């Protein structure tokens, strides 16, 4: 437990000292959202209709692209190997690393998401559901994505492999996340979608670290 907390603290301090690097995914998120009004036209009605899916896809892509350096540094400088050799379990290492990554990259994104939602003229009550669905969904994206990253860590060129591995597994999160917002914007209750998202959240954050740890063990042993 002490090692676990120490790890989270270390990651947060590291991230704080290199703020520029981690704001990249936030900027990317903003840029993707910006592309849509330019690409499909700036009509208010059209934008408010596609806004839920649009923001969710932008968040998904930003999260996925931020994953690349999830384990890379720890792998290259030997931290991962030391952790694997130590008495601490790799599962808790994986959990701490994924959690701090969520705090660093996804949390800022959730904070600014309402701004973008307003700019796309999403109805006000749907914005709260958007924030809630992102709170439940982005950890899932990172925990599932972590499996893909752990499998490809140690590969020299893996730039296009990661999306290929991870995106099919992102689909349920996208479906329920976007549809929760969409349904609220249409004036219905989104509790069904949010419950499913919550169930997936619990499933993901409790099971994925085991797969991540197993994959890291394979990557370390080579």
């Amino acid at each position, binding site marked *: 437990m002490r090692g676990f907390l120490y790890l989270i603290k270390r990651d947060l301090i590291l991230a704080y000292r290199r703020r520029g690097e981690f704001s990249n995914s936030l900027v990317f998120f903003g840029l993707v959202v910006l592309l849509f009004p330019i690409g499909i036209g700036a009509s208010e009605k059209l934008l408010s209709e596609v806004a839920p899916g649009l923001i969710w896809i932008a968040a998904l892509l930003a999260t996925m692209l931020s994953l690349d350096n999830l384990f890379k540094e720890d792998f290259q400088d030997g931290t991962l190997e030391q952790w694997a050799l130590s008495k601490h379990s790799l599962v808790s290492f994986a959990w701490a690393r994924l959690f701090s990554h969520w705090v660093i990259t996804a949390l800022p994104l959730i904070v600014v998401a309402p701004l973008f939602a307003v700019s796309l003229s999403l109805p006000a009550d749907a914005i709260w559901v958007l924030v809630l669905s992102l709170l439940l969904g982005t950890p899932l994206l990172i925990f599932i994505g972590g499996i893909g990253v752990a499998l490809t860590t140690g590969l020299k060129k893996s730039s296009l492999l990661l999306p290929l591995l991870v995106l099919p597994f992102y689909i349920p999160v996208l*479906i329920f996340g976007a549809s929760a917002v969409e349904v609220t914007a249409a004036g219905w209750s989104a509790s069904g979608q949010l419950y499913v998202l919550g169930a997936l959240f619990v499933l993901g954050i409790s099971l994925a670290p085991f797969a991540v740890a197993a994959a890291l063990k394979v990557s370390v*042993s080579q």
Partner: protein
Amino acid sequence: MNIIAKWYYRLGAPNWFYPLAGKLIPWVALIFLALLLPGLYLGLVSAPADYQQGESFRIMYVHVPAAWLSMFVYAAMAVAAVVALVWRVRMAEIMIISSAPIGASFAFIALVTGSLWGKPMWGAWWVWDARLTSELILFFIYLGIFALYNAIEDKQTAGKAMSILTLVGVINLPIIHYSVVWWNTLHQAATVSKFDTPSIHIDMLIPLLLMAAAFQFLYLLLLLMKMRANLLEQDLASGWVKKVVFERNKKLGRR
């Protein structure tokens, strides 16, 4: 040594598996043809035309078995993944990597024939419906497994990584399936698996089951061939491959 342990060691030994598979291949091919030919005849010629869909329903005899097999192959790969991870059987890894392209092909056939069937029936080549979408995702998962294995150079590591991914996919497949079902739906409901009152005519059902069994043996046939090829490729430098090549050359009268 008890019989299970004996099989365990033997199945792990390529020099035992390779000739055995070679002996099995013609028999499996024979059974495949014996099921395929009557299946095709009964399905394409003698089965009555559908009262709603006319003759075009006959594409079902390729479409449905391919779709079933695309899922069956994944299930088989998942079992092999457990075997590979728990008991470290290398042959199970070979089986997974040999199955992935076959499963992807079956999924691809199911998608293409479904699209050909969909155009006259629904008036559209492609609809974002639950079954189609989840089949497409399954296709991509197959490609991912295949790509991961080929991206990792050390085949021992590649085999383990691929087994983990295959298992993760198993947890996700039902989630993906039900998520797209709830997302939206148009595809016709199951007609064969309802056993109490099968809503499919018996003359149509028999060829379908024959074709399904034929596809099952087609998978086995392709799997054995692919596993042999993969084993030869990976063990190129080992003694048993040299022996195989030597014996083959002797049989062909070469030196």
